[in-house]
C-alpha cells in the first residue's frame, strides 16, 4: 500500500467517521419512486427507510418505520403499526397517510415510474396503474387505519412480501415536499437536491456535486440515531474500475463498486485480504430469438446449450469466483435451489444438431451472429463460446459488439439470433427470475411462450406453502431447460475491494448493506 504524506481518507475516517464509498455510476434519480439503478439504491437507503428494514447479515425484515406488524391467516392482509418516534428529517412525524400518498404517487401512470409494477402485488394496484381506473374507483389495497396504522391488502399471498418492502419503490416520500416542488406526477423537479430533500432515513442529503460527490450526513431526527455510528458517507461516482482501484489503494476510498476483471489475478495474489468475492443474486445468460430460424427449432437451442462448457467459462475466462449456471434461478434464492439441468454433453449436442440439419436438408449450419454490448468481459465470454461451439458443433459464429443504447434497441426490436443478457434479482425470491419468461413479460424478448409455464407461475403466486411453491418453480425451471429459449452461463459474483477498517459490512445476496450498522474501526471487531 502506498501512503501519501498527509493522512488519507481511510486513515482520517477512524477519527471523523466518514465512509468513503465508490459508487460506480452517477445515479439518474434520487427520487425513490423514479430510481432504477444500483447506484441510486446505494444512496437512497441512506436517506429513506421503508416500513421494514433489513438485518445486515441475512437481509431478513426487521422493524423499520413499523415497529411491529400482523399478517392475516390467509396471508393477504398486512397491518403495520408505526413507531411513534419515526420522523422525517425536518421533524414531521412519519404517518400512515404518507405511505398512502407515496403509493398513490408511484402508481400514478402520469409519473411514469419505471418500477411502479413492483407494487402490482397490492390489491387493485394494477387497475389504477395500467387500466386507467381512478384512484377512488380502483380501491387499491392501501389504507391508513389511523395515523400510525397502515393496512396493505395483497392480490395473492406473497411469501416474500416483507422482503419486497426493502426495494426503494416501496419507500415513502415526504408529501409536503413533493407538493412544494409539484413533483407528484412530474419528473425532473429539484426536490431531490440538498437542502430540499426530506427523508426519514439514518442520513440526510448534505451535498451533491454531479459527477463528483454525493454526501449524506447523520440525521439527528432518525428514530434509531443512537445505532448510527458513521457521521457521514461520501459517495464518489467513479466509473472507471482502474481509477477506482487506484483510489482505493491510495486510501481515498474504503470500498470500490467493482474490480476490473484483468486485475483480479494480481489483486488476489497481492491483496488477498482486501479483495472480496461475494455471491450476487444474478444470472449471466444469452437469449435465443425463437422468431427466426435456426433458433425456432428446439433441437438447435438444446444443442447450443449442451455444447457449452460452463465450468470452463468460469474457471478459464471470468475467473472471478463465478459459478456455472446449470439452471436459471441462482441457487438458494429465498431457500429455493433448482435442479441442475443445463448440462455439458458435446456428443448429444452434435447428434441433435445433425438431426436438425438432416431434417431440414441442410449440408451445413448457417453462419449466425452473436450480439453483445461493447465490453471487454462480454467479449471474452463470447469469444470463448465461439470457440467452444466451433469445436463441439462445427458452427461458425460471428461476434458483433454494439454500443449500449444501440444494443438495447436491437434487443427490443428482436433483431438478433443470439444476444447477451444479464438479470439481477430485485428481491430474494425465484419469482424475480422466473417471471420474465412469462408470455407477456416485457423482458422475455425471446418469442418463447408456454401456457403451462404461465399457469405454473400463477399457481405459485397463489401458493403459500413453501415446499409446494418451490416444486412449482422447479417445474418452471424444467420447462425452461427443455425448451431452452435461453442459455444460462454463470451466476454473478460481486467482486470488490474493501478496507479492513469497515466493520458491520456483511456479504449479502442483493449486495445490500444497511449503513446504520457500519462502523469504522482498526483491528478486530
Amino acid at each position, binding site marked *: 500500500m502506498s501512503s501519501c504524506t498527509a493522512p488519507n481518507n481511510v486513515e482520517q475516517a477512524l477519527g471523523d467517521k466518514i465512509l468513503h464509498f465508490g459508487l460506480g455510476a452517477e445515479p439518474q*434519480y434520487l427520487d425513490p419512486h423514479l430510481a432504477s439503478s444500483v447506484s441510486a439504491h446505494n444512496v437512497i437507503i441512506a436517506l429513506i427507510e421503508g416500513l421494514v428494514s433489513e438485518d445486515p447479515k441475512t437481509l431478513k425484515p426487521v422493524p423499520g418505520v413499523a415497529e411491529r406488524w400482523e399478517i392475516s391467516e390467509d396471508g393477504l392482509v398486512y397491518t403495520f403499526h408505526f413507531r411513534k418516534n419515526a420522523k422525517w428529517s425536518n421533524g414531521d412525524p412519519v404517518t400512515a397517510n404518507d405511505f398512502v400518498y407515496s403509493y398513490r404517487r408511484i402508481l400514478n401512470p402520469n409519473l411514469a415510474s419505471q418500477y411502479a409494477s413492483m407494487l402490482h402485488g397490492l390489491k387493485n394496484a394494477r387497475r389504477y396503474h395500467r387500466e386507467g381506473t381512478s384512484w377512488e374507483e380502483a380501491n387499491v389495497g392501501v389504507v391508513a387505519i389511523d395515523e400510525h396504522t397502515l393496512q396493505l391488502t395483497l392480490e395473492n399471498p406473497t411469501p416474500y412480501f416483507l422482503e419486497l418492502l426493502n426495494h426503494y419503490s416501496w419507500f415513502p416520500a415526504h408529501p409536503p415536499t413533493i407538493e412544494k416542488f409539484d413533483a407528484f406526477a412530474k419528473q425532473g423537479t429539484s426536490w431531490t437536491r440538498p437542502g430540499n430533500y426530506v427523508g426519514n432515513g439514518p442520513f440526510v442529503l448534505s451535498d451533491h456535486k454531479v459527477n463528483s460527490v454525493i454526501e449524506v450526513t447523520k440525521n439527528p431526527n432518525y428514530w434509531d440515531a443512537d445505532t448510527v455510528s458513521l457521521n457521514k458517507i461520501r459517495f464518489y461516482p467513479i466509473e472507471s474500475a482502474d481509477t477506482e482501484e487506484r483510489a482505493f489503494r491510495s486510501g481515498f476510498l474504503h470500498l470500490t463498486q467493482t474490480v476490473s476483471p484483468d486485475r483480479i489475478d494480481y489483486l488476489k495474489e497481492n491483496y488477498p485480504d482486501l479483495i472480496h468475492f461475494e455471491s450476487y443474486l444474478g444470472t449471466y445468460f444469452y437469449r435465443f430469438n425463437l422468431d427466426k430460424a435456426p433458433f425456432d427449432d428446439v433441437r438447435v437451442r438444446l444443442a447450443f446449450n449442451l455444447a457449452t462448457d460452463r465450468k470452463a467459462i468460469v474457471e478459464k475466462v471470468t475467473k472471478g469466483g463465478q459459478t456455472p449456471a446449470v439452471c436459471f434461478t441462482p441457487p438458494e434464492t429465498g431457500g429455493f435451489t433448482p435442479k441442475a439441468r443445463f448440462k455439458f454433453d458435446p456428443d448429444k449436442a452434435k447428434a441433435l444438431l445433425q438431426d436438425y440439419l438432416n431434417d431440414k436438408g441442410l449440408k451445413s449450419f448457417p453462419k449466425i451472429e452473436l450480439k453483445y454490448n461493447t465490453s471487454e468481459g462480454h467479449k471474452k465470454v463470447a469469444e470463448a463460446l465461439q470457440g467452444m461451439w466451433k469445436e463441439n458443433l462445427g458452427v461458425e459464429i460471428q461476434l458483433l459488439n454494439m454500443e449500449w443504447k*444501440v444494443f*438495447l434497441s436491437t434487443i427490443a426490436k428482436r433483431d438478433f439470433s443470439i444476444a447477451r443478457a444479464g438479470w439481477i434479482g430485485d428481491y430474494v425470491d425465484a419469482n424475480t427470475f422466473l417471471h420474465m419468461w412469462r408470455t407477456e413479460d*416485457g423482458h422475455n424478448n425471446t418469442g418463447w411462450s408456454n401456457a403451462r409455464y404461465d399457469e405454473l407461475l400463477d399457481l405459485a403466486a397463489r401458493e403459500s406453502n413453501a415446499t409446494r411453491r418451490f416444486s412449482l418453480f422447479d417445474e418452471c425451471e424444467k420447462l425452461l431447460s427443455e425448451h431452452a429459449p435461453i442459455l444460462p452461463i454463470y451466476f454473478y459474483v460481486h467482486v470488490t475491494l474493501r478496507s479492513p477498517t469497515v466493520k458491520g459490512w456483511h456479504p449479502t445476496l442483493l449486495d445490500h448493506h444497511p449503513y446504520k450498522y457500519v462502523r469504522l474501526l482498526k483491528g478486530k471487531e
Partner: protein
Amino acid sequence: MSKFILLRILQAIPTLLVIATLTFFMTRMAPGGPFDSEKNIPAEIKAKLESHFGLDKPLHEQYFLYLQNLLHGDLGPSFKYMGWEVSELIAKAFPVSAQLGLLSLGIALLLGLPTGIIAALRKNSKYDYLLMTIAMIGICLPTFVLGPLLILIFSSWLGWLPPLGWYALSDMFLPSLTLGLFYAAYIARLTRAGMLETLNQDYIRTARAKGASPLRVISRHALKGGLLPVVTFLGPAFAGLISGSFIIESIFFIPGLGKFFVTAAFNRDYTMVLGTVLFYACLIIILNLIVDVIQATLDPRSRNL
C-alpha cells in the same frame, strides 16, 4: 479592427445555427433514446415519460422549440441527471475544465517555448536532437498511458501527490502535467520550426549587422515572428484544453466538462449533447477570433486577409 471583429461575430451566427441543426438531427438519428434501459417499461409508460420532456412531439416541432428556447438562453433539462438543467451543469463543470486547461497550458508554454527556442538556436546539435526526441515521445505518448504512469511514480511510489480528485491544490498537479506535457511537446516543435524560419529572414540579419546583442535579436525580433505558428496552434488547442478532456477526467476523477460531453452521447442525453456541442463551438469561435486579433497585432500583413 472593430469592423473586423463585428463581422466575425456576425459570421458566427449562421455557423452556430448549422452546428445546432446538424447536432440536433444527428443525435436523433442514433438508435435508442434517453429512456431505454435494460429494465423494459411498458410502451404507454415510456410514452408518458417521453411526453414529460416533449419527446413525443414531431421532430421538426421539437427542433423549432429547441431553437426558440435557445434564443432565451435555455438549454433545457438533462435527461440523464434528473432535476438539473444543462446550463447549470455546464456552468459548474466548465470552471473545473478551464482551471485544468489553463494550468496545463501554463505548463505547456513554460516547458514548450524555452525548449523550442533552445533547440532552434542550437540547431542540429546534440541538445536539439535530445530535446526534439523527447518532444516526439511526448507527442506520441497518449495521455491514457502518461497519466497512470505519472500516478505510479508520483503517487504510488513516491507518495508525493494524490492519485485523483479535484479538491485541493495538490490534486491539480498530476492531471495538469499529463495534459500539459502533450501540448508542451507540440509547442516545442512548432516554436523550433517557427524560430528557424524567422532566424533566416533578412530583417534578422539586418538586426545582427546593426550590432544588436543576440538576446535582443531573439527577444525583440526573432521571437515575434517565430511564435506565429504557435499562436495559430494555440487558438483551437486552448479551446480543446479548457473544454475538458474525457480521458484525463476519467483517469483522475475530475468533474469537468469532458465527461459530460462524451457520456451525454452514450446516454442519448439529447439536450446535454446539444448544450455541450454549442458551448464548445462558441468557445472555438471566440478563441479563434482572439487568435486572429493577436496575429494581426504580431503580423500586420494578416490584417487585410
